[in-house]
């Protein structure tokens, strides 16, 4: 039993690392622009298919696809941003609908370009088993987890120290005041959106190295990312990471202690409980409402 639970905790933490990678971008664009990008999961998936393309066409390691993924996803993100920026009325509602529509377009574009077959990395090194005491993992998962940690720290540093990072925080906390300080909100939001796209690129490539992808996956990724954003609370980067780990561990423990059919149920119930009882999320710096 102890072995079972240990493995569940370990698997949960590892998968949580990748959830975090998927959620960081969504949390950033939400924090900066107050807009939920419902096409975020599809952006992640787009990057994953870039990795598939590079691996099958060139035989290189999937991680070699990161430059291509960055380029493609940043391009789509920029277009998406320009469209959101054009919305004049009911920005909150219409941005939800707009990004959702872009998600539909991306899902079907991926379907048209890559067919609906399931894809995953063929690299034997990434699939090798790693043993730590009595628990097991795939090399690909360990690498993805490490990448997630590094990117989280990098994002945290960027928000704290760099000029644009501070501008993002300034705009998100008080748009008018930030404008008075000489920060262009539009450009700042664009930068935040592009950084979110970059995070999605890394997440997609990492996803491809450790899991199975297919065109219909994007929406589920978006929902996971949103759940984590809620668990984390707005404006907390370490919160996103911890929230993702919590979700991963909850899911794994549900499978181990109850039934694998209830995994998604557990995640959703956790989401609702936090949503109702903790207005700031688990780690949030600011209130969600008001």
């Amino acid at each position: 039993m102890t072995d079972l639970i240990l493995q569940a905790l370990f698997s949960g933490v590892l998968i949580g690392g990748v959830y975090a990678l998927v959620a960081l971008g969504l949390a950033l664009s939400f924090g900066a622009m107050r807009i939920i990008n419902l096409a975020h999961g599809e952006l992640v998936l787009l990057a994953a298919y870039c990795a598939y393309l590079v691996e099958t066409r060139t035989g290189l390691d999937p991680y070699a696809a990161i430059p291509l993924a960055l380029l493609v996803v940043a391009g789509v993100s920029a277009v998406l941003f320009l469209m959101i920026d054009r919305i004049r009325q009911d920005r909150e509602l219409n941005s939800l609908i707009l990004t959702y529509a872009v998600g539909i377009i991306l899902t079907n574009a991926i379907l048209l370009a890559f067919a609906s077959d399931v894809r995953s990395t063929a690299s034997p090194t990434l699939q090798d088993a790693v043993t730590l005491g009595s628990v097991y993992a795939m090399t690909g998962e360990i690498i993805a987890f490490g990448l997630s940690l590094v990117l989280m720290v990098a994002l945290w540093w960027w928000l704290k120290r760099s000029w644009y990072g501070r501008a993002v925080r300034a705009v998100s906390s008080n748009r008018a005041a930030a404008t008075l300080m000489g920060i262009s909100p539009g450009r700042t939001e664009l930068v935040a959106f592009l950084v979110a796209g970059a995070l999605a690129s890394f997440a997609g490539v990492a996803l491809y190295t450790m899991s199975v992808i297919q065109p219909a996956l994007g929406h589920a990724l978006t929902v996971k990312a949103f759940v984590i954003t809620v668990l984390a609370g707005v404006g907390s980067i370490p919160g996103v990471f911890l929230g993702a780990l919590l979700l991963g561990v909850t899911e794994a423990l549900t499978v181990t202690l109850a039934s694998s059919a209830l995994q998604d149920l557990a995640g959703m119930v956790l989401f609702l409980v936090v949503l109702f009882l903790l207005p700031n999320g688990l780690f949030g710096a600011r209130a969600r409402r008001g």
Partner: protein
Amino acid sequence: MAPAHRDPRIPAPASGKPWRNAALVGACLVLAALPVLLGASNYLLGLLISALILSGIALAWALLGNLGGMVSFGHAAFFGVGAYASALISARLGVPVLLAIPLAGLCAALSALAMLPTLRLSGPYFALAILAYAQIFRILATEATGLTGGGAGLQRFPGLPTILGLDLGSRTGSYGLLVAMVALSALAYEAIRRSHVGTALRAIAHSEDATRVVGVNSVLLKAWMLLLSAFMTGVFGALNAHIIGFLEPAYAFSGLWSVMPIIAAIFGGYRTVLGPIGGAIVIYLFDQLVAKDLIAVGHQILLGLVLVVMVLIAPNGLLGLLKRRAGGRPHADA
């Protein structure tokens, strides 16, 4: 925005003259009767039936969105509860189908009681909380094998009956029934919109805090809108179940029932009564008759494009656009 002689912050419902409304109702009835009069094929009637089901959900969605100010991404929850409730009530308890359908609507409204805590949430939080409920309901329906048959599905339940010699289970019969149900829902929606409740709700949408000061219980009103929207959606879920004759959780709680109504309502104009109905019909027929012929695999990409264009160019929907062109009152709420 609103004409200057009114309080611009609290738009009033259209003060249309009676003959105008009568003409509108007449035009709609003629339109609805056309396919039958022209002897449309079963195929076309089948498409229209599916489109009307979507119309019903789109209307319920828009009611919540327009009057309640809440955007839901999970109306599939009510649709699925309604579908299963009606199938089970008619099959297990032997209740006549036409009685089981409104009872199923009540069940859907009951299920919405579980969602009352979401009313405190705003914007995207509410939207995705309802989505979470839809997921939870789907999994519960999958797990409750004794009641629902689980993932293997449910298919032995009665279809629509024959009433006064009219076989409601036939294409023409189902079509007529759905036209009536959509019309009924639209009238109910319009009646609420014109009532004091409607005025209060519009005021809430503009400034919740201000209305609270004047003594409007906004949470209670919103709760009623949620229950009503759930009831309507549940009824259409039940109708669809009896027309299709097979249920499984993945279908009854499919994200499609959440997404298509949103697309339809946005397309037609979700702040109007006729917008969601017309939007659903146009969007569904466009998707099935045109888009499918153009792109066999992945035709939803065209729906996505249509939606993007609508949000960017005509956020008030097709009706809003028509109105602007016709030089009528530009206000979205008319």
